[in-house]
C-alpha cells in the first residue's frame, strides 16, 4: 500500500519521536528542578549544568572507575543520590546563604554560581580528562512491537524520569516538608511567621534540585556522552525549557520539556546536531517577545 520509502520514513520518524520523548523526559526532570529552586529560593544557579554532569561523573566513578558490578543501577542510585543531596545542601549553606544578606544578592548569586560553573567544568577536565565518557545503559536490548523497534534504554530513561517527577510531585503535595516548600515559595514572610525554618528549606530545596538534575545526568549520560565542557549549554537548555514553560509552573515545564525534546530531535535529524542550539535560541527569543510568561505563567 505505501511505498517502501514511506514506510522507512515512518520508522525513522518514530525513532526520532522516541528519542525526543526520552530526552524530553529528562529535560522535564531538569526543568522541574530548576523551577523548584528558582521559585522557592529565588536564586539562579549557573552551575546547574555542571551538577547534571556531576551526577554522570559520580555514576561513572562507581561503575567504570571502581567497577561496581553487583546490584547494578539501583545500588548506584542509592549511593549517588544522597551524595548529590549532600553536595547541594552543603553548597547552598556555604556559598548561597551568606550572599542572601547582601543587597543585589540575586546578581551576586548569579556571579558566584558562574564562578562555580567554571570551577566545576575545569575540575572535571583536570580530573576526568577532556575525552568524553559514557555510561552503560540500564537495560540493554530492544523491544519489538510489530515492525517497530524500541530500545529498552529509551524506555527506561523515559520511565525513570517520569517516575522521578511523579514521586517529587507526590512529595510536594502530600508531605509536611512539601507543604513547607510550597509555603516558602508562595510567601516567605508568611512561612517565617508560621515558624517554618526558611533557611533550612532553602538548603533542602537546593539539594533536591541538585539530586533531580544529577539524576537526569545519570540517565542521559547513558544515551549521550558526558562532556566536561557541556555544563554551560545544558544549563541554558534547562533554562530555555523552564522559561518556555513559565518559571514557577511545573506543568508548563513538563509541556515545554517535551516540546523542546522533540524539537531538538527533529532539528538534529534534519539538519545536524549543532543546529539544535540555534533552534532553541530562536524559540527562546520568540517566547520572550511573544509570550514572556511562558506557556503556563505563574502559580504552582
Amino acid at each position, binding site marked *: 500500500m505505501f511505498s517502501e520509502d514511506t514506510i522507512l520514513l515512518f520508522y525513522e520518524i518514530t525513532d526520532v519521536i522516541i528519542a525526543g520523548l526520552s530526552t524530553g523526559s529528562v529535560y522535564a526532570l531538569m526543568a522541574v528542578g530548576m523551577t523548584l529552586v528558582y521559585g522557592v529560593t529565588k536564586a539562579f544557579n549557573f552551575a546547574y549544568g555542571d551538577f547534571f554532569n556531576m551526577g554522570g561523573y559520580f555514576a561513572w566513578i562507581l561503575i567504570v572507575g571502581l567497577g561496581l558490578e553487583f546490584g547494578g543501577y539501583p545500588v548506584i542510585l542509592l549511593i549517588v543520590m544522597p551524595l548529590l543531596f549532600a553536595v547541594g545542601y552543603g553548597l547552598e549553606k556555604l*556559598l548561597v546563604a551568606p550572599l542572601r544578606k547582601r543587597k543585589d544578592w540575586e546578581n551576586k548569586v548569579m556571579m558566584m554560581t*558562574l*564562578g562555580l560553573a567554571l570551577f566545576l*567544568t575545569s575540575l572535571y577536565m583536570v580530573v576526568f580528562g577532556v575525552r568524553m565518557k559514557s555510561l552503560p545503559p540500564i537495560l540493554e536490548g530492544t523491544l519489538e512491537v510489530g515492525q517497530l523497534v524500541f530500545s529498552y534504554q529509551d524506555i527506561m530513561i523515559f520511565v525513570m524520569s517520569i517516575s522521578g517527577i511523579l514521586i517529587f510531585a507526590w512529595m510536594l503535595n502530600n508531605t509536611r516538608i512539601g507543604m513547607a516548600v510550597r509555603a516558602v515559595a508562595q510567601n516567605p514572610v508568611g512561612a517565617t511567621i508560621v515558624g517554618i525554618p526558611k533557611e533550612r528549606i532553602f538548603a533542602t530545596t537546593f539539594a533536591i534540585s541538585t539530586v533531580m538534575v544529577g539524576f537526569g545526568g545519570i540517565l542521559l549520560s547513558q544515551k549521550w556522552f558526558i562532556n566536561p565542557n557541556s555544563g554551560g549549554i545544558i544549563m541554558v537548555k534547562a533554562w530555555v525549557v523552564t522559561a518556555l514553560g513559565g518559571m514557577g509552573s511545573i506543568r508548563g515545564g513538563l509541556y515545554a520539556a517535551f516540546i523542546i525534546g522533540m524539537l531538538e530531535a527533529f532539528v538534529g535529524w534534519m539538519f545536524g546536531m549543532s*543546529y539544535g542550539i540555534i533552534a532553541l535560541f530562536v524559540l527562546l527569543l520568540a517566547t520572550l517577545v511573544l509570550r514572556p510568561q511562558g506557556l503556563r505563567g505563574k502559580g504552582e
Partner: protein
Amino acid sequence: MRLKHMIAIIGVCYGIMAVLPIFVGDIRFVMNIMIMCLIWAVVASCWDLMMGFAGIFSFGQVAFFVMGAYCSGILAIEHSVPPVLAILMAGLFTAVMGVLVGLPCLKLAGPYIALVTFGVHMALQPVLRGKIGIAIGSGGSVGLLTIPPVSIFGHAFSSANMVPTFYLTLLLSLSCVLVIMFTIKSYWGVAFLALKDSQDFAMSLGISAFKYKLMVFALTSFLTGIIGAYYGHFYGVLSYRMLDLDLFSILMVMMLVGGLGHFPGSVFGAFLVVAGSELMAPLGAYRAVTMGALVVILVLALPNGVMGLFIGRRKRLSAG
C-alpha cells in the same frame, strides 16, 4: 567617587603604564602582557558600566568582543578594508548588534537578561564554527589566521615593533576609559544612579529607563567591539575558543577584584588580573580551576573588590 579621584586613579594607572616601556621596552613578553592589560581594561570597564553601574545584568560582553574582532578581521581579509576603517566599522556593527540584543532584553527582569545574553554568547560559538560562519569567512574551527595589523600612514603597528604599538594601545585604551568615565559622571550617570536606586521614582521624573539602558548597550558594545577589533589586528589570529568560559570568568574576576560599580576599579582589576593570570600560566589546566574558585571566593569575601578597601578606609575616617 568624585571625578577628581577617578581621574587620579586612572592617571596613576596609565601613567605608570606609560613609563614602564623605558625599563622593559625590549622584553617582548612583558610588553605583550601590558598590551593585554590595556585591552582588557576597556572590556572590563565596559562590563562594569553595564553591570555595576547601569545595573543591567548582561553576560554578553565577551560575545561582543569576539563579534567586533571577527567582523574587523573578516572585513580586512575578505574585503581588503584597511584596518583602521575596519575597526571603526566593526565597532559600529557591534553597536548595532548590541542594540538588537538590548531591545528584547530590556523588557525582562534580571536573570532573564543574563540568560539571553549568555545564550547569545553560547550561540555564537556554533555559528562561527559552522557553515554560516565559514560562509562569511570566519574560518570555521580554524579561525582567522592572517589578520593584517593596523597601519597608519604606512607604519605598521604589530608585534614587530612593540613600543609604538604599545603606545597606540595605551592611547586607545585611555580614550575608551575616559569616554566611560565621562559617561558615568555626566547627566547619564546621575540618571543611572537614580534608576538603580528606585526605578519607579526615576521614571516618574521622566527618566526613561529603556532609552538609557539601550544607550548603555550601544555604547558598551561599540567600545568593546572597537577594542575587540583592535585585538584582532594586534594578535593577527582569532579563534572561536575565545568564547570558552575561561575568558569569561577572567573578565568577571577583573570586575570583582576591582569592585563592581566602583569605576575605575575594573581598570585596576584588569591590570592586576592579567598580570596575575600570566603568572599563573605554569598552572596549565589548573588555572581555570583556580579562576573559578577565585570568582566564588571574591563574590563571597570581597563584595566591593579592591576599591572596597579604599572606600572603607575613607568612610571610617569620616565617621571617626
